[in-house]
């Protein structure tokens, strides 16, 4: 009995040791590059620090500066919120396309591929492509507007205080539309057909079928699209860097570009850390809000 217990004990610890070994590399990477930075950001935001001087506790001074003195922060925050707020438009458009492509249309897979091709491209390249489309001289958009007589002078899209952000958002839409479409398609295809059959037998008109059956069952996919839309405002650094670099005059400055400029342009790592904490909180709050609006539980329906 004693011998057996110790044998089991050894095998169990061997198992656990093996599992730990297997998990260790992945866990190290995530610890180093996700968890530790999160805590470090928080710590750094409460100190002043530069690479040559030791850190000193200053409490909420950075946050005070950010919220009270920093106009660029508020501009960046507004721009980021506008960016996020525009994503429902893209989701609606993607939903329309997904509905069209979902039916047994001949060549549906070709349409799907074409719409989705813009997603796996380098965002830097997408930025350059759209920069050229918006160009006053050689750009397609100005050409269409001028030759159809809508405007007389070329419109300086990316240098206009009012239009620049909309232009960047449009470029983002072009890239992310395919992704939303795929997510929504997957959701559409997982809706059981018998629900539609039952509704048709009951004489429910198509529009009502859409709103009562399709939309509610699509909630998890829509929730995912909303979360991706929120994250896109953070990952759009590439687009803004290449298209406008935050200009003209911070009109397209997003939180993430401002963080980059503070941290690596002005080398104010501590202030950038405080900005990152605020951005992360924004992400959490918005995701939680989206969760609540989709009915909780990431939108999943009770059956």
């Amino acid at each position, binding site marked *: 009995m004693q011998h057996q217990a110790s044998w089991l004990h050894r095998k169990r610890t061997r198992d656990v040791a093996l599992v730990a070994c297997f998990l260790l590399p992945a866990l190290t990477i995530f610890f180093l590059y996700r968890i530790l930075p999160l805590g470090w950001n928080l710590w750094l935001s409460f100190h002043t620090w530069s690479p040559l001087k030791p850190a000193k506790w200053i409490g909420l001074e950075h946050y005070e500066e950010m919220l009270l003195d920093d106009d660029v922060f508020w501009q960046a925050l507004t721009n980021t919120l506008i960016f996020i707020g525009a994503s429902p438009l893209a989701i609606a458009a993607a939903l329309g396309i997904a509905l069209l492509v979902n039916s047994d249309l001949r060549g549906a897979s070709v349409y799907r591929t074409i719409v989705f091709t813009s997603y796996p491209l380098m965002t830097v390249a997408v930025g350059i492509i759209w920069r050229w489309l918006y160009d006053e001289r050689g750009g397609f958009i100005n050409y269409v507007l001028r030759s159809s007589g809508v405007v007389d002078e070329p419109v300086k899209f990316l240098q206009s205080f009012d239009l620049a952000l909309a232009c960047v958002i449009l470029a983002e839409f072009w890239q992310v539309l395919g992704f939303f479409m795929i997510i929504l398609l*997957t959701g559409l295809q997982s809706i059981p057909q018998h629900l539609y059959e039952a509704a048709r037998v009951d004489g429910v008109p198509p529009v009502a079928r859409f709103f009562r059956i399709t939309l509610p069952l699509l909630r998890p996919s829509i929730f995912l699209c909303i979360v991706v839309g929120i994250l896109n405002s953070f990952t759009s650094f590439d687009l803004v860097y290449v298209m406008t670099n935050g200009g003209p005059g911070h009109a397209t400055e997003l939180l993430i570009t401002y963080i980059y400029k503070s941290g690596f342009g002005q080398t104010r790592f501590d202030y950038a850390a405080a900005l990152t904490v605020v951005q992360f909180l924004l992400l959490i709050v918005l995701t939680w809000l989206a969760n609540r609006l989709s009915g909780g539980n990431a939108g999943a329906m009770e059956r």
Partner: protein
Amino acid sequence: MRRAPTWPRHAIMVAVCTLMLIPFYWVVKTSLTGENIYAYPPRILPQDPHLFSYVDVWYLIPFTRYLLNSLIVTAMAICGNLLFNTAAGYALTKDFPAKRWVILLFLSCMLIPFQATIIPAYLITSWLGVLNTHLGIALPLLSTIICIFVFKASFEAVPKSLIDAARIDGLSEWRIVVRIMLPLSKPAIATNVILTFIWSWNAFMWPLIVTRTADMQTLPLGLARFLSVMENTTGALYAFVVMVLVPGLAIFLMAQKEFIRGLTSGATKG
């Protein structure tokens, strides 16, 4: 029952696809044209098309250097991912104390976007001494949580009888993974490879932060750098864009199914 006519749907889809393809066409047209690209009005078709802009770009910028850097970083990321994610996915199929906490840990790491970590990640990389090296660029990309769960799901689908038989045969755990589970998880491997490829090939912000010298730059960085170097009247910049996009597009078109499957498996998991 009369079917609704399908031509309106086709018409809308053709219109949508045309809109989606116009940016590609415009850039390709600009890279091929033989005239001053800033002349107004821009022509719809390239005038005097020639491929010499591509030759020019080849000698003007260190394209092979950028390509090599991107390839090395991507190869490192793919190898690291396959190794680490397989191991972690397999470990998650077993029962062990604190398993729930570990899974929760992984899921919560998914909530932390990369952009929330750049400042400390830079400091950590510099502390590790791998700043401005291929390893430094690849390090945060060496493991992704979505792929761990893809492997976990795939491994859990392997029938227990096979594993038990292998254990009786005396295979060690790692051998079980390699000889039994991986060959049965080819879709998971393909998904992992293609997702890692796309993410590390297109990565811009992290290499921007980590590289300090021009000869370590990857393709996206080279592209952004070329943007600021010269504004010439030939389509050289756009030839560069096309050259940069072609490998990514080719790989995507070749592995579409796996890519889409990888993205949606992450979606339905959520």
